[in-house]
């Protein structure tokens, strides 16, 4: 973590503490902020993968789904403790990410995208078809909400939990970027050949980042399941994987902050557009298109460009 990150993080922590007070306990407002945090967690992981390992994943909705279904199934059908289910989801996601990433990240090119796409679709079909476990297309209900020493975590308390995760993972990500792994990946980004010649095992680090990003998504999935207490496969489709990529690109792939910004914007946007009814999809597409056309490096860089502060942010986008 660099010194320049201290103030934004402090500001964010302050905002997280104060924000719920603005809404005055309004349930809709709180749940919007919770979803923002959940999407933010996944897109931070994806941002590490895209910005630093230069790979895109079209299957992160599946890792999100693994987290959600692990928590859902284990707590409702096998009466696991939510924390145990949370970690089993993480282990499972990490294992699958390792198995998918290991062979594909050795290869250059689009294999990662294709493999994650295929794997994501297959898992989506399993979520639908394994009805005895997952409840099939009609979903899995009755997931218990979280408790903390007997206190039910709901509303503002849940919001603090989710955003606690966001801030913790943000700190963790910023440290990863400035660690041995982050430096190695930046070297790979500059020139994979040169990095390999210096003894950097590029594919190993890429697999590590991919597994890490899958773990983020799984955590988000567990948090989602206990918040909404009802999950169905439609939340974990390819379209959500692509939406997550969109969040990272709209925010900017060059820093982790971009991913958080993108998640915030794309969580709020559909809510604001809802009133347009028939125009909703049209306006959504047009706005995304406009942002990408006028700020091809993402909103964060776009704003920095407008303020005249260029350069000095992380690595160039892939």
């Amino acid at each position, binding site marked *: 973590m660099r010194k320049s990150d201290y103030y934004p993080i402090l500001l964010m922590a302050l905002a997280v503490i104060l924000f719920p007070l603005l809404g005055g306990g309004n349930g809709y407002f709180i749940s919007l902020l919770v979803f923002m945090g959940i999407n933010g967690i996944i897109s931070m992981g994806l941002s590490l993968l895209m910005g630093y390992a230069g790979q895109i994943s079209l299957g992160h909705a599946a890792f999100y789904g693994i987290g959600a279904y692990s928590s859902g199934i284990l707590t409702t059908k096998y009466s696991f403790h939510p924390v145990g289910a949370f970690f089993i989801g993480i282990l499972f996601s990490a294992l699958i990410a390792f198995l998918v990433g290991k062979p594909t990240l050795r290869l250059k090119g689009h294999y990662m995208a294709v493999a994650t796409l295929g794997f994501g679709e297959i898992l989506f079909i399993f979520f639908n078809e394994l009805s005895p476990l997952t409840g099939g297309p009609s979903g899995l209900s009755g997931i218990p909400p979280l408790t903390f020493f007997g206190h039910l975590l709901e509303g503002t308390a849940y919001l603090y939990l989710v955003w606690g995760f966001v801030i913790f993972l943000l700190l963790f990500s910023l440290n990863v970027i400035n660690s041995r792994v982050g430096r190695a990946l930046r070297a790979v980004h500059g020139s994979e050949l040169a990095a390999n010649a210096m003894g950097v095992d590029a594919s190993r680090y890429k697999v590590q980042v991919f597994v890490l990003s899958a773990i983020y998504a799984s955590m988000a999935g567990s948090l989602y399941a206990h918040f909404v207490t009802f999950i169905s496969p439609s939340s974990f489709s390819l379209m959500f994987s692509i939406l997550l990529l969109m969040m990272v690109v709209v925010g900017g792939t060059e820093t982790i902050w971009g991913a958080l910004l993108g998640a915030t914007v794309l969580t709020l946007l559909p809510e604001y557009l809802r009133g347009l009814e028939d125009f909703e999809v*049209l*306006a959504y597409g047009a706005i995304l298109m406009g942002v990408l056309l006028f700020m091809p490096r993402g909103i964060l860089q776009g704003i920095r460009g407008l303020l005249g502060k260029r350069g000095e942010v992380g690595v160039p986008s892939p």
Partner: protein
Amino acid sequence: MTLASQLIQYLFTGLTLGSIYALVALGFTMIYNATGIINLAQGEFVMLGGLIMVFCTMILKLPLFLGFVLTIIGVTLVGILFERLAIHPLKNASLITLIMITLAGSILFRGVAMFLWGKDPYALPPFSGSRPVHFLGATIQLQIFWILAITLLAVLGIGFFFNRTLAGKAMIACAFNPLAAGLVGINVRRMVLFSFGLSAGVGAIAGAIITPITLMEYDRGPLLGLKGFAAAVLGGLGSGVGSIVAGFIIGILESMGAGLISSGYKDAIALVVLLLILWVKPSGLFGSAEESELKKF
């Protein structure tokens, strides 16, 4: 029905699906070759093809052939406009940004279609006679023959364009090496424009011929795009012949899988096969290993 007639039934369904996937995959391949972009709006071209065809023949009451030609021209124009307004202005954007722009484009097209046509699916009468023929116990719709014939014509036409005309050869040159193509005087950016127009046109054909069988609504694009993309990758991403063959393979596997194993898993079967083949031969069925080393994405 006996097993043999069932198999024939599934085979014909598979060929129908395969034709559509092959055409979508061909559209992916053309844009990929010219730009390195995976055009996520490819399925939307098919959707627009189907809906414009419905508009021309059902609402304007145009003759079938005229409506078909107008549909192709219309969607080709959409493709050209899309390239000019959304891809062309960004000269130095990263590939992933351009791919995300095609995604934004696909949402935009879906939004426009939903606004113009609403959310309900539209039907189109078959091109000739709605009475199916019976063949060895299998029931086959006449439209399937139309689909196969038109797909064959489209593929032959595209083959002719790429192998026999100057513009087609110039596009192949751009696919091999844009810099070298530019050095011998080919206008590379114009070829990018052509590739978008052409693949939109091919998508329109697919949409117009499939609508009598499957109906068409505004949000059909993503699934068609996904299958077409799988076919393009299976064929070696960049190989025209490969994408056509792979399109048929995926179509037939899907219909056999749905019929013989379980319809719920039909999408999984095609994708598992895709993943297995890529595991064994990462460059796809028709791609070479050296070529795939050079790929941008």
